[in-house]
């Protein structure tokens, strides 16, 4: 197996996790930046639609590095999927696959199920629930919590901050509850 084939196959957790963890010291040493991604959403609000709200009145230009960072993530997403893309279908755990099949998911070929996330679904009920409603909760919830998986779960826990542990546990509890109580209802409803 040559190096390109190796790069194209899915990367195991013990490669990806440490690389993500290294982002913490890399950002700190490059420019005293604390790792955190959800703030980019706040900076976009502050830059584009501050509307005189005190929460968006700050010097977002000083935090512009975060916008460069997320722009890089978009480019990396492109490179990872189109230049280094896995030629094979994703391998989903059998139990998850069976449960989701029973709930009506039929497409297990890509990273995202086309049943739900196809562009043609944007203006349908699927789009309203999975894109608009879900996205709103991600934006509202992360800001209310003061961070997301990167800012709290990775950066906060790495720095032994107990409020970040509270936040991380809350993320997980919300996710478990939604997966087992809400999602079956939503999937059943739209698929």
């Amino acid at each position, binding site marked *: 197996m040559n190096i390109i084939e190796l790069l194209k196959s*899915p990367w195991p*957790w013990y490669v*990806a*996790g*440490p*690389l993500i*963890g290294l*982002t*913490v010291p890399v950002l*700190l*040493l*490059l420019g005293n*930046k604390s790792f955190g991604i*959800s*703030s*980019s*959403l*706040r900076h*976009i609000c502050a830059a584009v639609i501050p509307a005189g709200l*005190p*929460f968006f009145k700050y010097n977002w230009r*000083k935090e512009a*590095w*975060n916008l*460069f*960072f997320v*722009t*890089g*993530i978009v480019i*990396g*997403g*492109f490179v990872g999927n*189109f230049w*280094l893309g*896995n030629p094979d279908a*994703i391998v989903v755990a059998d*139990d*998850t696959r069976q449960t989701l099949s029973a709930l009506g998911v039929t497409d297990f070929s890509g*990273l*995202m*199920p086309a049943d739900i*996330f196809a562009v043609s679904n944007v203006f349908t009920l699927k789009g309203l629930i*999975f*894109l608009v409603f879900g*996205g*709103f*909760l*991600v*934006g509202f919830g*992360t*800001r209310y919590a003061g961070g997301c*998986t990167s*800012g*709290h779960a990775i950066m*906060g826990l790495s720095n032994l901050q107990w409020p*970040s542990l509270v936040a991380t*546990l*809350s993320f997980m509890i919300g*996710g478990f509850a939604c*997966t087992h109580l809400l999602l079956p209802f939503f999937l059943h409803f739209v698929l």
Partner: protein
Amino acid sequence: MEKIQQHSPLSEPVDAEFDNIRIDGCDGANRQQSVESFTGNLKYLLVGVIFGIVFVKAEIVSWFRIQEMFRFDSFHMYGVIGSAVAVGLVSIWLIKRFNIKTISGETVSIADKVFDQGQIYGGLLFGIGWAITGACPGPLFAQIGAGYLAVAVTLLSAIAGTWVYGYVRAKLPH
């Protein structure tokens, strides 16, 4: 006091501003003293590119992987987050222990997280959104780059959610 100086616009009273940023002034915060140029910021773009590639290649951006995680059907995501925290933990310990400076010679400074009820209420709301969309904010950007263009709607809605939070913030329990 550092946090106050960091964001304080001159027109705002210091107390209001302090309250404004108390909760999340440290999420993704820039603590560097010297100002960076456009080209200086490009290094963060490069870090983002590598980060985005890892996100896609380890399938962290996959809705299916998030479902596996919340259904306890795979160790993958727990392995990713756990080993990332382990590496981050050791890195920060080393930086503090040996007082390693930034490339511009500054002392590394990380703000403490302050407890706030929002970490519970907001955390639960984000968790629900995470399970629905299969994405936290980072993967949202990577999914769009990976060609899942419908996720642009999710991102716009997440920006709207952030804005609405800013609008109703004073009325929420903190």
